[in-house]
């Protein structure tokens, strides 16, 4: 007994130390970012980064929040795009996946192929752009920013696999014999067991929308419709470009903070997610693991 106690205590201690080191390794980079965001730019250039801010200043945050309405607007747009894109996307993806999972659907192979095909061959950037800008005429609208990403082929295939795995054919058949139509089967038989699948696909979808900057960059004609990531990304790019532009044009570049602003921006962009994460984490984790076992 004694020996066992010792060994388990030793094991626990080692576990504690190892996990502490591991979690420190995860947290430290973020600490550096936060501390850097409170350090003056000159300090960073001359002495590099440090764990605790030297020459504490909130100058970088002042730059970002000089016009708080802009960043709030960007946050608002991000919630809007993520909300509408995830909700609508989830509905379309699930319904599509259900249809192509049914054996009695005659063209399911053709439809699956058409969906799958787009994951291998794409039209390329220019036709894609022309499609939304000239054919659909969506340039400058918010639709152009959330619409193109509604359905991801990979997620449709993932969802189809979920449905096939979670709902045995026999169950659907017996429901059919009892007189249920497709709507009833979908709502009352399939959907109730699809929780983990919905969580996983919804998570992917939401992360994709939250982190997107490219469509804002391509299709926005006003900063009012920018997503948060693009707002922040463009702030970084303009400080950089203004310096380069000085080569061609007489622009004043002496007052642009860079390093510290970039760091402060990372904090602002990730902050809310970090605060939110512990509360939704268990749904995420259970969604992914349950899905993994079943799928």
């Amino acid at each position, binding site marked *: 007994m004694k020996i066992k106690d010792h060994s388990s205590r030793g094991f626990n201690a080692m576990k504690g130390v190892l996990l502490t080191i591991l979690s420190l390794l995860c947290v430290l980079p973020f600490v550096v970012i936060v501390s850097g965001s409170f350090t003056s*730019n*000159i300090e960073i*250039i*001359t002495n590099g980064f440090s764990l605790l801010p030297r020459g504490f200043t909130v100058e970088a945050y002042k730059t970002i929040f000089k*016009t708080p309405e802009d960043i709030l607007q960007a946050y608002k747009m991000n919630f809007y795009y993520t909300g509408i894109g995830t909700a609508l996307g989830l509905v379309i993806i699930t319904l599509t996946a259900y249809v192509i999972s049914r054996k009695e659907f005659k063209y399911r192979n053709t439809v699956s192929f058409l969906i799958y095909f787009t994951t291998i061959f794409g039209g*390329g*950037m*220019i036709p894609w*752009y*022309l499609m939304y*800008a*000239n054919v659909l005429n969506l*340039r400058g609208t918010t639709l152009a920013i959330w619409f193109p990403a509604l359905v991801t082929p990979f997620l449709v295939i993932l969802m189809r696999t979920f449905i096939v795995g979670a709902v045995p054919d026999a169950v659907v058949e017996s429901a059919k014999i009892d007189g249920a139509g497709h709507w009833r089967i979908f709502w009352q038989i399939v959907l109730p067991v699809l929780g983990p699948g919905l969580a996983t696909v919804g998570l992917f979808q939401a992360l994709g929308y939250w982190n997107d*900057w490219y469509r804002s*960059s*391509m299709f926005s*004609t*006003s*900063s009012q419709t920018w997503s948060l990531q*693009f707002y922040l*990304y*463009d702030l970084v*790019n*303009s400080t*950089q*470009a*203004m*310096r380069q*532009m*000085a*080569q*061609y*044009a*007489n*622009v*004043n*570049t*002496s007052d642009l903070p*860079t390093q510290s602003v970039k760091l402060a921006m990372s904090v602002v962009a990730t902050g809310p997610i970090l605060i939110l994460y512990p509360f939704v984490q268990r749904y995420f984790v259970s969604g992914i693991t349950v899905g993994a076992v079943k799928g």
Partner: protein
Amino acid sequence: MKKLLSFALALVLCLSAASWAFAADDMSEEANLVFYVMGDAPKDEAVVEEAINAVLKEKFNATIDFQFSTWTDFNQKYNNTLISAGADLIYVANWENYGLNATSGAFLELDELLDTYGAELKELCGEGNLNMCRVNGDLYCIPALWPEYVSLGIKYREDLRAKYDLPYPTTLENIEAYLNGIKAADPSQGLLRPTNTESASSLIIGFDTAYLLADKYAWVAPFGMPYGLAADYDTPADVYDYWFSDDFAEDCKLFKSWADQGFWSKSALSDTNDNEAYDNGLAVAEVAGMNPNKQISSANSFAKDHPDWESAYIAYGENTGVIYPGHATQNGTAILRSSKYPERCMMILNYIMTDEAMNCLVQYGIEGKHYELDADGFYHNLDDSFAYEGFNTWNLRVNEFKLKQPTDVALQAMFDKYAELGAQTKWPNINIWDGFTEDYTDYSAERAAVANVMRQYLAPLQAGLVSDVDAAVEEFRAKVTDAGLEACREGFQEQWADYCEEYNYQ
């Protein structure tokens, strides 16, 4: 990629050309024009646009809406705008491939329009300026009318030079003496911070130190032509070989001796670009990518943070005698071929560039709200919702109307000095090199291979970070030949010869 782009362009343009050719501009129809410009929108975009449009609506029954590329992916978006016919008027510049886009058919030929609707503007531009904007004989853009010198040079610490009684860093020898003098007096002081900011992408040099070549040679292109070619400013059509010459090996040895003396870090090849080192005193000179404007920026920064420091600037052209203003196509305005209202575009462009009140409104916003002029006539910003040249319309600058800022006095003094020197060259104040655009579609594969070799072998040579220069030079020459240098050179020289002939630079 380029081919695909030109094809897409041609397709879109054919379709749209058909539509406007038949519709002569009917002034009774309101024209809502899009003016595509670079950079980010000012906060007060709508306010200033409203003021502009109030006038344009009455005079031309038209409105303009400035649309902005932002600074993210701006090259891609600029091309997208061209192929999607997303604008009527557009900012053009040699660094945005003005020449290539013009030959691809993106822009409308302007000669007739200018005669009919822009006579005043035509006179203001002058034949010389317009000629520099011609591509294969046709005019595709109206240049900005503000002669600007972006002459490369060395930005250095005049206070340290005077303190240690060192020579002015004019020639390469004097630059070396200047750096060595500071190093001897204060060994802890950082000297240069050259970096490898994708120098090879222009296919001219491998590392930033090679900007110094502009201080040694009186070349037509400041630090050499692509693919290791060179030509003297006085005889631009007479192209010769630099990479395989003894001069090249000599220069590499000089760079090595500087690197060995510790002028820059041993890790310079992988260091990231640090624009702020000089302003913060971590370097005592900048030799790459400098221009008079950057000197003014540093001088302002010193005045604010380190009043006892002094920044000074010597253009390399002052040493070689080759100095010229920015090319006319550095900032210009074109009309998209797809525009439904080309006549109205020209009328409005003519109006903005010849009417002082309108020009100031577009460039500086509303007087009294966004800016004011002080007793000496200097511009002072009142509201950063619309900064100086808030729409980034450097293409609409007109010398006569341009409002001066206090810092412009020093800048103008530099420009005046360079203009005087430039007037004494064989081609008085003519920028030959920047009017040329290379079309490398036919040899893009070889070009990419040459660029790779330059990154791998030329960069360490020009950074002086090889142990045996002669061996490294030989290795570089062998590798770059294998990569397909000849094909690139042939293609380039053919185009360059045509260009020199077209503009009579013989």
